[in-house]
C-alpha cells in the first residue's frame, strides 16, 4: 500500500489486514507504562491540516509518536499557506524537506488525490484525513474497528447512518467500507440531506428513523450543522431534532445490545441527546481510542510494510 486515499476500492483483505494490525497494536500497548514502539524511528510524518480539527489531528500525531516517527504539524494558519502558497507548492516543499508521509485534511474534495499525483515522484505517501465532502477513510476504519470489537464482526450486521449524508465524508467512507466488509447499510435522512443518485450506492434509504431502529445492530449519528437550515435543507434545528435526533425515548427502540456511534464533534441536543451520548451502549470514546490504533496501523502499512524496498 502506497497511499490511503479512500475506502472505495479498498479490498476486503487489505481493510481486514489494517483492522487486524490495529487490534494487535492495541493488545501490545495495553497496560504498558511506556506506550512507544520503535517501528517508525527515523521516519518523518507531516500532518497538513487546512481545516480545523481536534480529534483527527491529535489522533494522527499520537499514532505517529507512539510508533517513534518524527511528527510535524502544519496548519493553514501560521504557515506559508497564509501567504498564498499553493497546495502543490506546500506539498512539494514538505516532500523536499524529507517528509515520508503527508497526512492531509483539505476542504476540497479530491485534494488527497491531487497530492498523491504531485508527490508521486518524491515517493511520499499520502493519507487522506478528510477531503471536502468526499472521504475520510481512517474514520471509517476506526468505526469498523469499534464495531468489530462490540459486535464480534460486521458480516450481515445492519447499520444505520443517520443525518447529513449529503455533506458527510464520514458517511461516504463508511458506506464503502461497511459494504466491503459485508454489513447492510441503511441511510436515514430527510431527502434534502441525501446525495443525488444515492440509490445507486450499496445501501437502502429511509426517511423514518423510528421504523429502522428496532432492526439495527448499530446506529451512527452524523453531525448536523444548525446553519444548514439557511440552505433550506430542513426547516429548523428543532424539527430536525424531533424527526432525526437520537434522544432517550428513541434509544429504547434500539435492541439492547445495539451500539451507538458518533464521529464527533457532537452537537448534543441536536442530533444526539446528551444522556444517549454518555450511555453505556454508546461507543463514542472507544471510537477515539481505537482511532489511534487504526492510524498506527495505517502508518505501519504505509511506511514500515515495504521498508526493505525503500532503504
Amino acid at each position, binding site marked *: 500500500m502506497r497511499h490511503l486515499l479512500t475506502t*472505495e476500492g479498498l479490498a476486503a483483505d487489505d481493510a481486514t489486514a489494517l483492522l487486524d494490525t490495529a487490534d494487535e497494536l492495541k493488545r501490545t500497548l495495553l497496560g504498558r507504562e511506556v506506550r512507544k514502539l520503535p517501528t517508525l524511528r527515523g521516519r518523518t510524518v507531516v500532518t497538513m491540516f487546512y481545516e480545523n480539527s481536534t480529534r483527527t489531528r491529535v489522533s494522527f500525531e499520537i499514532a505517529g509518536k507512539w510508533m517513534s516517527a518524527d511528527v510535524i504539524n502544519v496548519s493553514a494558519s501560521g504557515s506559508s499557506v497564509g501567504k498564498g502558497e*499553493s*497546495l*502543490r507548492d506546500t506539498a512539494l516543499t514538505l516532500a523536499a524537506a524529507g517528509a515520508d508521509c503527508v497526512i492531509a485534511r*483539505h*476542504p*476540497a*474534495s*479530491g*485534494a488527497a*488525490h*491531487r497530492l498523491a499525483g504531485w508527490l508521486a515522484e518524491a515517493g511520499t505517501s499520502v493519507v487522506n484525513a478528510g*477531503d*471536502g*465532502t*468526499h*472521504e475520510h477513510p481512517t474514520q471509517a476504519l476506526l468505526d469498523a474497528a469499534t464495531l468489530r470489537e462490540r459486535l464480534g464482526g460486521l458480516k450481515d450486521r445492519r447499520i444505520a447512518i443517520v443525518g447529513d449524508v449529503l455533506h458527510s*465524508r464520514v458517511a*461516504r467512507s463508511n458506506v464503502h467500507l461497511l459494504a466491503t466488509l459485508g454489513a447492510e447499510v441503511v441511510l436515514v435522512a430527510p431527502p434534502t440531506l441525501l*446525495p*443525488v*443518485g*444515492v440509490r*445507486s*450506492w450499496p445501501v437502502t434509504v429511509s426517511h423514518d428513523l423510528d421504523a429502522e431502529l428496532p432492526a439495527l445492530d448499530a446506529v451512527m449519528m452524523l453531525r448536523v450543522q444548525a446553519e444548514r437550515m439557511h*440552505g433550506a435543507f430542513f426547516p429548523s434545528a428543532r424539527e430536525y431534532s424531533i424527526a432525526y435526533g437520537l434522544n432517550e425515548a428513541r434509544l429504547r427502540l434500539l435492541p439492547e445490545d445495539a451500539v451507538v456511534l458518533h464521529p464527533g464533534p457532537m452537537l448534543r441536543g441536536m442530533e444526539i441527546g446528551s444522556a444517549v451520548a454518555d450511555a453505556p451502549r454508546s461507543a463514542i470514546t472507544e471510537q477515539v481510542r481505537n482511532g489511534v490504533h487504526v492510524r498506527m496501523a495505517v502508518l505501519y502499512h504505509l511506511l514500515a510494510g515495504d521498508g526493505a524496498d525503500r532503504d
Partner: protein
Amino acid sequence: MNEVLIRGARLYGEGEPVDVLVADGVIAGIGAPGVATVPEGAEVIEAAGQVLLPGFVDLHTHLREPGREDTETIETGSSAAALGGYTAVFAMANTDPVADNAVVVEHVWRRGREIGLVDVHPVGAVTAGLAGERLAELGTMAKSAAGVRMFSDDGHCVADPLIMRRALEYSTALGTVVAQHAEEPRLTVGAQAHEGERASRLGYTGWPSSAEESIVARDCVLARHAGARLHVCHVSTTGTVDVLAWAKGLGVDVSAEVTPHHLLLTDERLATYDPINKVNPPLRTEADAERMRQALADGVVDCVATDHAPHAVQDKDCEWAAARPGMLGLQTALSIVAETMVRPGLLDWRGVARVMSERPAEIAGLPDQGRPLAEGEPANLVLIDPDAEWTVHGAELASLAGNTPYEGMRLPAVVSATLLRGRITAREGKIG
C-alpha cells in the same frame, strides 16, 4: 493584387474537385480543374480533393485581453482562431476592465483589425461590470466603431428577471442579440460539477441540470413577450434541448450553441479530480452528450461555439475547487466536430458549414461571413483535409495557455488553409 488559386477542392466535400480563384478578397471564379489560367504571382494551394467550406464563426471566445495577457492576447487568440479555421470570433466581455463600454469594445475591435488574422467582434456586457444590477450602455456600444452585435454577461447569468426582460426589450431597437449564460445562481451555490451519481460519490458539490433549464425556460418566455432575439450559450442538458424545441415550436426567436467539449466529454472525467476537466457549465452525462449531438444534427441546437477559455497553469494545476473553469477550444473544435458528428454520420460537411459558419454568422448578423461558396462572395474560407489525423499537445497550440482536455488524443480532420477576405491567414499549421 493578392490572388490565390485553390486547386482541386471539393466544395462542401461534395461532387468533383474544382479550382477556386480568389482575387480582391472575393471568390473570382469557380471552374473545372485546369481550366482557369493561373494569374501571374498568384499563390497556389493544392487542395487535392480536400473539403472547402466557408470560414468558421465562433460566437463564444475568451481572448483575455485586456486583463489576463499572461494567458491569451488578442494576437495569440487570433492565431489560434486562424489555425482552427475561423474567420470571425466573438470575444466575450469578461475582461478586466469589463467590456461594458465603448472604450473597451473599441480597443478589442481595433486590436483585432491591426492583427488582421480573424475578424474580432467584441461582445458587450449586458450589465455594468457584469454585476447583473443595471444595464450597460448597450446603445453606445452598438453604435461605436466596434459595432457590437451581441451582448452577454457570460461567466455570469443575468439572473434578475427584470434586468433580463429589459435587456431583451432594449436590444430590439438595436437589432442586437442577448446571449445568456443560463445558470440560476441560487441553485449553483458552490457548484463544482454536474449534479449526478458521479459527483455525489466523489464529493463534488452539484451543478444541477435544472439550474440551466429553468433559466432557459424563463428567458424563452421573456423573449417571446418582448418579441426579442435570445441566444443561449453553451447548452449542456437534455432538458434544455426539450425547452428549446418547445420554444422554437411556439415561434420564439431563440438560438442556441453547444461547445465541442459537451459533444464529446462527460462527467466520467471527474474521477481524475484533474481540473483540466473543470468547465462551466460542467461536463454532463453520456446521455446528455448524446442528446447534444442529436440536437445539433436536428437543428434544435443551431451551432457550435468553442467557449475557448485559456487559463494559467497555476489556475489549473491545483485542487479542483480552487481551479478556474474553462478549456481551450479554437484549434480543436473542427476535429471534435469531425469526431463526434461527421464520423458517425450525424452531419455531412455541408452540415458542418451550417453549424460552424452559416448559422453563427446569421445569429450574430455578420453580412460577410457564412456566405455561399459562389462567385462574387467574400473569400472567407477554410480548406480541410478530412482524412488527416493529428495528436493534440497543449504546448504546441498557439494560445499562451495550454489547458486542453484533449492532450494526447488523436483526432481526425486538419485545417490546411484559412483565408480571410482572400488573404491566407493560416496554412499547414502555420500563420500566414
